[in-house]
């Protein structure tokens, strides 16, 4: 009787350990990120002014303010600003 009970406990422990191991392996493999495919020395062009869409913050703020006053939509453009009673 004891042998049967012990076998059952051993089997459950083995199954639990196996599940934990499998879960751990799955999590670890999900954390493995691919290598950055654009090296730092290849990013020079991306820093050029022609690639900076909102390089003049004051200009972008004014355009965004003018739109937000006259349209029903707001947000999502990447420009942060204050408020006004312009509705």
């Amino acid at each position: 009787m004891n042998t049967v009970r012990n076998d059952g406990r051993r089997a459950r422990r083995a199954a639990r350990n196996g599940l934990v191991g499998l879960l751990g392996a799955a999590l670890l493999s999900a954390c493995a990120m691919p290598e950055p495919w654009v090296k730092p020395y290849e990013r020079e062009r991306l820093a050029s002014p022609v690639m900076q869409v909102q390089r003049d913050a004051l200009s972008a703020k004014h355009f965004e303010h003018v739109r937000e006053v006259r349209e029903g939509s707001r947000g999502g453009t990447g420009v942060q600003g204050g408020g006004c009673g312009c509705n």
Partner: protein
Amino acid sequence: MRLAQARLLSLGERRSGARGLPFVASAHLLGALGALLATGNARAVDLPEDRADVMLHSFNGGGVDAWGPALLVRKSLYDKFSLFGTYYADIVSNASIDVVTTASPYRETRNEVGGGLSYAVRDSLITLAGSYSSEPDYTATAFNIDIATDAFGGMSTVGLGYTYGSDDVGRRDEGFFDYAKHWRYRLSLNQILTPRWMATANFEVVSDDGYLGNPYRVALVFGAAVPERVPRTRTSRAALLRVVGEVLPETSVRADYRYFWDTWEIKSHTFELGATRRFGERWLADAFTRFYSQDPALFYSNNAMSETQYVSRNRQLSQFSSWSVGTKVTYALHAVPGSYEMRLTGAIEYWKTNYDDFTDVRNGELYSYGSVVSQVFLTVVF
């Protein structure tokens, strides 16, 4: 740290065998600790550049003339902090269709001051900012916090932002009578795709509570003018996707799409295409075109034929579409390499708006208007 390390190493070298090992090990540990502390101050993210901009801006169209100065100054301190201050003024002469058909043209000035601090630590840039806007019948205070972090070997930049705004709402003949509060939550991802292309995805939620209407605006119900009735809460979401790429040397193109939707049933689509090109050593030019279309708010009506809890004739909440085309040109006036650069920029945009369900009460025709938005500013980068 280095002196202590050197002394330990020399002691280790003078002792032989196992007796020298603890000194050598301690020296290397000290060295590692020193390196760790040193890298605690090193960072991969750059502070924004030091600059000063002085601008004159203008909007003219639909009977509204709004112009004024704007100023931005930014300066870094100790290679870790960047302080900035802004000033913006709108001098408004308003004879818009709402004003001329229901009231009298007026003129007023709005002033806004702002400032903040950016702090660069490791791969992150943390920015705290505030602003205060004041006009005769409305004041608005806002606080922002933004965090931008480089990730994935610098290929990605993840941004989180939060804004809290608190307004006092007034009426010229009555003083301040109500409040409006706003909360904005921003999430952004900038991703390098190839050495010449990158993409941006932004998501922003805006929530408002309080008086969200206009105390001077009237709605039409069975042809009779009544004060508008607008809900006291609103929540909106906007998602934007942008792609920018260098297609030729010194030439880039970009495409944007933004989808907006909110609890007032407004939905909108925004498409924008642009191109930027450098000409020679001194000229940089942008050109863009934008198309916008919007579905109306649930309670919007040009002339309501039933009594409803909420009703508004605010054309900004109606069904309409607009298109615009514009350009921005920058000329490098003077540059001293490694010291400063002075640039002059002019921008102009023609913007045409066509309303599908808002009429000019003077003639019953659907309303439309063209406007011109322009800026001229001097920038010094130092």
